[in-house]
């Protein structure tokens, strides 16, 4: 049910996206030139020599890479618009990372969902189709340099077609799952999918 929004007497909008940007901006979003940082706890600092990325299923590690091994995987350059549920969007961000297709292809998979898990305990749940088919990467470079820790370095998931809380910072692996279960923010009332073009911010949107 939608209600009629009352006009906010005297409210005038200052921000108008350029015509070119407007087509790329989901509803309720505005363009930021900065790169805001949002996270629920302290920034983890895992030494690269201790870093691994794993694909797991039923508590078993199907495939794991060290940082050095990960760097030998074929990397792709990705330019994408990103959209945060807190309503900022950043257009044309540039990343370099390994396609999740490459990782799951090496590990083998037959599961309808994944749960990304991270240093610091963060998790987020995704349908398998949203991390395969050229939709997602594990990114380690941003803007031509190593991804800074506060933005998720050494590596974060990049799923640009969903709200950016899905692009889990400090990602350490993907758990293949036969059923969907909420991750961190999803447990706290955020949407189980998070399509910015449908404004799926909170549960029930």
């Amino acid at each position, binding site marked *: 049910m*939608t209600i009629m929004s*009352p006009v*906010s007497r005297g409210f005038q909008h*200052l921000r108008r996206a350029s015509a070119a940007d407007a087509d790329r901006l989901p509803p309720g979003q505005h363009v930021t030139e900065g790169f805001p940082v949002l996270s629920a*706890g*302290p920034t983890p600092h895992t030494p690269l020599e201790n870093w691994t990325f794993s694909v797991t299923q039923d508590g078993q590690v199907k495939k794991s890479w060290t940082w050095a091994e990960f760097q030998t995987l074929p990397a792709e350059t990705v330019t994408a618009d990103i959209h945060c549920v807190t309503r*900022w969007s950043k257009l044309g961000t540039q990343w370099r990372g390994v396609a999740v297709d490459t990782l799951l292809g090496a590990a083998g998979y037959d599961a309808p969902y994944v749960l990304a898990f991270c240093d610091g305990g963060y998790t987020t749940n995704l349908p398998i189709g949203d991390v395969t088919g050229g939709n997602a990467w594990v990114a380690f470079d941003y803007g031509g340099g190593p991804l800074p820790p506060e933005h998720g370095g050494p590596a974060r998931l990049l799923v640009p077609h969903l709200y950016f809380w899905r692009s889990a910072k400090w990602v350490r692996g993907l758990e293949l799952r036969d059923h969907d279960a909420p991750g961190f923010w999803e447990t706290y009332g955020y949407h189980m999918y998070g399509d910015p073009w449908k404004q799926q911010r909170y549960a029930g949107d």
Partner: protein
Amino acid sequence: METTAVRGRLTWQVATVTSVTPETGSVVTITLDPPDWLGHRAGQHLDVRLTADDGYTAERSYSIASAPGEPVAITVERLEGGEVSPYLTEDLRAGDELELRGPIGGYFVWEPADGGPLILLAGGSGVVPLRAILRHRRRSGSEVPARLLYSARTLPDVIYRGELDQGHDAQVIYTLTRSHPLGWTGHTGRISQALLAEAAWAAEANPLAFICGPTSFVETAAAGLVGLGYRPERVKTERFGATGGR
């Protein structure tokens, strides 16, 4: 855990503004009377939506400034060049309607049963959800020890100063980053490892930390507490930055 994820939909509702009270030269507290409010927890936020006469809408999130059981209130800082905060701080009047939905968020919240000791670290208007926590502690009769370390530009920029200075058994420590009055004997300068070591509870007490402020403040404070031996899962952060948001 999963029950919170399947709660009902958050619907927009039209609240009546019951008061707009200046806190500082650029900050106001807005109390609201939403028709359908199921209650909130200390630390949660709500979304506000403004609608222009041509149908354009703008939404922002604001931390709830009041304790559970108190009338819903938000405290808003005017951001230069902002789109929503200048309207809320300068144009909005008691009796106006304001569209909102909430409460939102369930991680950056404190309940008496969560214990402490509590260390609350505020950068600027990041004090807002921490004030809700302090009020909730007081109203619930919690005896959990609490300290607030509050970094503000100047003394007149301190929000809720009268209330905070009353103490209510919570110790409040200010640090002023830009300028300070003659004879100021408190701390000055940005938050530092040395100040955290002096102001924060010892890690052995297994403190619970809530940090809210701009990114640089939160990064320094969170890393500093972890450096003092705080368990990362007991350090909860909420950040705002160049989002035009809070």
